């Protein structure tokens, strides 16, 4: 990237809300149903029908508004956004124009180790459109209206984003926030979160914005990262060659890694917004708004920062733990027992337990593992009652069964032998059987100590205390 230029990005994120029903009718809000089975005259836009707003949509959108530090407009309305496209049977989308439900907020995101504050212009509620399936064999397109009327929030950022990395961090933070709040299943692959990207560039030091280009069809957050870098480079090249950027909409092709012109400014849509006469003003009381605010949990970025400062964990580990609501809650529950070091808890969760979650493609809450059992297991290692290796054996059992680790240690005889007499016998035997290694050690090849300790561990059938064994091996050779 040419360092004489600065990238300026603004993002519009659409997220489907995970309500039971659609925004304006009682049809099921469900992904993957048989085509045109979750439809009725309201969502198919038949004449003579009237939309009735779902209160859960308002509540969910206000939750997101609070999470993004917005002002909530307790008195607002709906407006029609008019355009012709066959995925929209009414030829208008019910949206919000001049009074969004939430506005003037911000989101703090972590970029590297820095906290970056990104302004949020507005969050409004609207209905999703249907889906078109293009089929050449039929000589036309198929319209499935199941998605028509699925509730959406549109989150519009200020042009505060200065790099593809910042954009990615912002999108990731929105994603985890949606999941934390439990208001969207946020599945990118099902299209429940989508984004439009606005990119411009300007010479470093300039205070005026360059002409912006909007990109459509950016279907994943990693695609957003690629699309921003591509578009910024394209614009810089145009400017460097003495050209001018024109305001236009381009379509991102993630497979080819390029974008192509979709429409120029002259063809820009004129949506002719006006207040929807089918819907009246709606109000949310100050008490209700405050009540929703009180229900917002600690959010991922705040958690990440707290894990770093309170538990001394690294930024990367803190973020990984905080990323998933269930994992974070589990980590906190283990730490809350006060039985073991947060750092060890983090290592076990992000190591062995994560591996299992990936293999089984499940959440930590799907395991039989309880915070109490994990805490007990780790404390047994920290008290040197069992070795790390024995800890793994215990973990394998408590992952699938709610059983006291102390009992497992007893039943399987996993307790570490720290009895000097017993260990001494083992050391003597091993040294007698490995004269060559002992000679090597005396000749300065001190790294053979690892091999000798390994032999001792084997002899003790994994129960010896390795730290003690190491000291004893060294002491014994030095006495020889």
């Amino acid at each position: 990237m040419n360092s004489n230029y600065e990238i300026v990005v603004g993002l519009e994120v659409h997220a489907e809300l995970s309500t039971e029903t659609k925004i304006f009718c009682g049809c099921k809000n469900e992904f993957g149903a048989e085509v045109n089975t979750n439809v009725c005259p309201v969502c198919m836009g038949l004449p003579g029908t009237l939309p009735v707003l779902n209160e859960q949509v308002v509540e969910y959108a206000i939750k997101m508004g609070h999470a993004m530090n917005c002002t909530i407009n307790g008195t607002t309305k709906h407006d029609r956004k008019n355009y012709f496209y066959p995925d929209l049977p009414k030829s208008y989308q019910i949206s919000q124009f001049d009074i969004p439900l939430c506005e003037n907020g911000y989101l703090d995101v972590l970029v590297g180790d820095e906290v970056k504050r990104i302004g949020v212009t507005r969050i409004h509620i609207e209905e999703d459109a249907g889906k078109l399936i293009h089929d050449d064999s039929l000589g036309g397109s198929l319209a499935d209206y199941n998605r028509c009327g699925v509730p959406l929030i549109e989150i519009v950022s200020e042009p505060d984003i200065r790099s593809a990395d910042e954009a990615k961090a912002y999108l990731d933070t929105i994603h985890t926030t949606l999941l934390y709040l439990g208001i969207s299943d946020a599945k990118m692959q099902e299209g429940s979160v989508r984004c439009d990207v606005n990119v411009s560039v300007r010479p470093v030091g300039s205070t005026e914005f360059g002409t912006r280009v909007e990109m459509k069809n950016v279907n994943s957050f990693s695609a957003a990262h690629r699309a921003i870098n591509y578009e910024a480079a394209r614009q810089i090249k145009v400017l460097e060659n003495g050209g001018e950027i024109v305001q236009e909409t381009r379509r991102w092709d993630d497979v080819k890694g390029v974008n192509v012109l979709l429409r120029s400014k002259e063809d820009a849509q004129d949506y002719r917004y006006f207040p929807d006469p089918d819907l009246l003003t709606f109000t949310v009381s100050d008490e209700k708004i405050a009540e929703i605010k009180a229900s917002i949990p600690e959010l991922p970025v705040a958690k990440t920062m707290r894990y770093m400062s309170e538990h001394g964990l690294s930024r990367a580990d803190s973020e990984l733990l905080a990323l998933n609501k269930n994992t974070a809650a589990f980590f906190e529950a283990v730490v809350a027992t006060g039985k073991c070091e947060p750092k060890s808890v983090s290592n076990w969760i992000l190591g062995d337990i994560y591996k299992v979650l990936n293999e089984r493609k499940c959440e930590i809450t799907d395991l039989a593992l309880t915070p109490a059992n994990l805490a007990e297991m780790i404390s047994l290692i920290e008290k040197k009652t069992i070795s790390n290796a024995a800890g793994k054996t215990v973990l394998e059992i408590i992952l699938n069964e709610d059983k006291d680790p102390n009992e497992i240690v007893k039943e399987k005889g996993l307790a570490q032998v720290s009895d000097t007499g017993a260990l001494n016998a083992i050391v003597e035997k091993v040294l007698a059987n490995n004269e060559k290694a002992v000679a090597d050690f005396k000749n300065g090849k001190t790294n053979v100590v690892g091999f000798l300790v390994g032999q001792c561990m084997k002899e003790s059938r994994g129960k010896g205390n390795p730290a003690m064994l190491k000291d004893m091996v060294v002491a014994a050779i030095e006495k020889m």
Partner: protein
Amino acid sequence: MEIDIMRLAKLAKLSIPEDKVEEFRSKMESIIQMVENLPDDLDTTGSLVDPDDTMELRKDEVQPSFPRNEMLRNAPYTAAGCILIPKVVD
């Protein structure tokens, strides 16, 4: 007020033959004139919310959807449980 009748036609997806443009322009002009003649004391500068006349919201409870064959009865062409429409690509 200058009216671009072809732009309005495009927005409304109407095709207006060349020789009718002038006619539609003058008719549209008189419609706009009529609207402009509405009394000035109508306050339309606000955002048109009316806190004294608000709507009740609906509980998030599933109601049965309509049978698909019923819903598709209005469509001129159907295929594979969908409404078949002229090919669109965007």
